[in-house]
């Protein structure tokens, strides 16, 4: 499974690279488009972090490893010499800042902009202490969220992975400002992994802390369509894929909640809010909900003893890569939403891919 998730991550990075190389890639989702409301990946991560505080470290580590691996591939494909940043720690500060900024802007800021993840920029480089700060405005991970501590773990991991690969040094990153805390932009400090101060602050940043966010309020803001950032509320579906691949929890061996359980909890809690917003408590309301979020085009919902739902252009599987493990959260969410809306306890039974569609069956609880 890890290898398959790695493949998914690699596919996301390569498709982002292809897009900045201006290759004409076909639109994956003809009806909904290749963007998704940033609420979808955000809600998913927030729910995961709330349920399993340890997940921050998991997201950080997985996204770091994936970025690191892919940056080497990107450098090679762009013809960038592998010794480009040779002995970076000996460079004069101005040269280090200007060169790194130029490369980051040309490649990684371009990728982040195309994906609508945020506006990345190198803010400063301190060669003497081997520390770098990156600013990230319009951060997709925390736009519209209020929290007491920084929570952009995916981007912290991604940026440390990028810088580690470019400089060929083991680097770590943590947030020193976060939009979620009320700061203007997210800022990441990146330093050497063997720097005790960096390690201490990293551990503090990824520490097991229960982050509580008002997800109900956040959903309302999303449904009302309030614009949360300069880039708009949509983000490329590739980012969502990376988020899923880097935060998936399948088993419960360590006592943590699985992606399915968290999705189920989410569906149960959000069903009344969705029904109230659309002023409609019929089952079809979920069609409107998923379509508004550019998440899924629900073709049909047949309610009998069982409930059969046909999903089309599902954001989770809108690639060549199809794996049901990625859908556990969604299956839980559907089970929770449908059970609430039709006032019957249903359980997820089965799902099957049919051409581009996905058929999901919910059955009464035995």
């Amino acid at each position: 499974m890890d290898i398959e998730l790695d493949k998914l991550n690699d596919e996301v990075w390569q498709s982002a690279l292809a897009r900045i190389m201006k290759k004409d890639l076909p639109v994956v989702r003809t009806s909904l488009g290749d963007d998704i409301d940033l609420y979808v990946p955000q809600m998913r991560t927030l729910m995961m972090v709330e349920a399993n505080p340890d997940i921050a470290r998991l997201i950080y580590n997985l996204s770091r490893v994936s970025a690191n691996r892919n940056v080497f591939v990107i450098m090679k494909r762009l013809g960038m010499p592998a010794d480009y940043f040779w002995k970076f720690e000996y460079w004069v500060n101005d040269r280090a800042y200007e060169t790194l900024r130029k490369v980051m802007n040309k490649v990684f800021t371009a990728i982040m902009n195309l994906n609508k993840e945020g506006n990345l920029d190198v803010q400063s480089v301190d060669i003497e202490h081997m520390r770098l700060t990156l600013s990230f405005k319009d951060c997709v991970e925390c736009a519209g969220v209020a929290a007491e501590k920084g929570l952009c773990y995916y981007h912290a991991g991604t940026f440390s992975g990028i810088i580690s690969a470019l400089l060929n040094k083991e680097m770590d990153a943590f947030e020193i400002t976060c939009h979620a805390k009320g700061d203007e932009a997210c800022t990441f400090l990146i330093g050497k992994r063997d720097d005790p101060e960096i390690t201490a602050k990293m551990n503090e940043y990824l520490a097991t802390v229960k982050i509580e966010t008002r997800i109900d309020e956040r959903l309302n803001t999303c449904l009302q369509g309030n614009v949360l950032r300069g880039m708009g509320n949509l983000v490329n579906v590739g980012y969502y894929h990376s988020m899923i691949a880097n935060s998936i929890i399948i088993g419960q061996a360590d006592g943590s909640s699985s992606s399915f359980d968290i999705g189920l909890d989410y569906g149960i809690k959000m069903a009344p809010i969705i029904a109230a917003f659309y002023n409609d408590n019929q089952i079809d309301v979920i069609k409107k909900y998923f379509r508004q979020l550019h998440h899924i085009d629900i073709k049909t919902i047949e309610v009998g003893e069982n409930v059969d739902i046909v999903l089309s252009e599902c954001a989770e599987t809108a690639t060549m890569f199809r794996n049901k493990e990625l859908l556990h959260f969604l299956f839980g969410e559907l089970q929770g939403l449908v059970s609430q809306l039709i006032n019957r306890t249903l359980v997820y039974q089965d799902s099957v891919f049919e051409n581009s569609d996905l058929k999901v069956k919910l059955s009464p609880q035995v």
Partner: protein
Amino acid sequence: MDRRFILILAIIGAVLLSVLSFIIPKNVGSVYVSVMQPLALFMGFLLAFEVSLNYGRELKKSFLFLSLFLLLYMVSNILPLWQYFYSSLGNTTTLYLIQILQIACYAMVLTSCAYTLRVIEVKRINRYGWIFIGLLALLCVYIVIRNLPTMNAISADPTTQILRLLITIFDMAIILMLVPVVLLYIQHLKSKAKESITFMLIMGGLIFSIISTYIFELATGMSLDKIATDYFQKGSVLDAIYIFSYCIIAIGLYGNIKYSEWGYQAIVKALSSKEN
């Protein structure tokens, strides 16, 4: 233009410039060499100084001392200047000047090598690298022993003989100190993050310029004195090798200055090309 293409082109240019020294008539060849050698060293001095401005700490010092070495070495390679000193200052004073200059040259290059050793990660050299260094060290010891002056020679001219011995020892020390740079480059050719090609060229050029005299000595069986009298700036193969190695140093330094720009241009080109 692709950076590899530029470097290959420059190396071909260096080969042509050096080969020219012994394919043209001897009388023209000696003039050509007496201009080309100091010129290549002067270019190296300017470029090494510029490279030193791009770095800090040990690497800055390494290039700074390298640039000073190239400058002093360039002065020692201007034969008309020394002929003028011989005629105006006399043999003894000029010889003292030459010896002072030689000592200064070695002080600069050895300091540069010491800083280089502090920058490169010698610990990363693999077993085969250490075996190679061990064998090279044996060769160096052999070269030193081969050039040991006789007691008669020492008693006749102790200063010159001891200085010559020291120079041989210093030359061998420089080779042993710089070979790790080349070894590390070869060792990491296939790794994700390679060692610097330009740094390898600079140090490789320096090693080549030093070792070629001794290889020539071993191959021909001639003494270093005879080589200096009959082959230095006479339009010889050895002159060609010197020009080639000085040019390689200059190419490495130029490449080091331009490397960021070339790398960035490669990115821009790749991003704007749909074929990639």
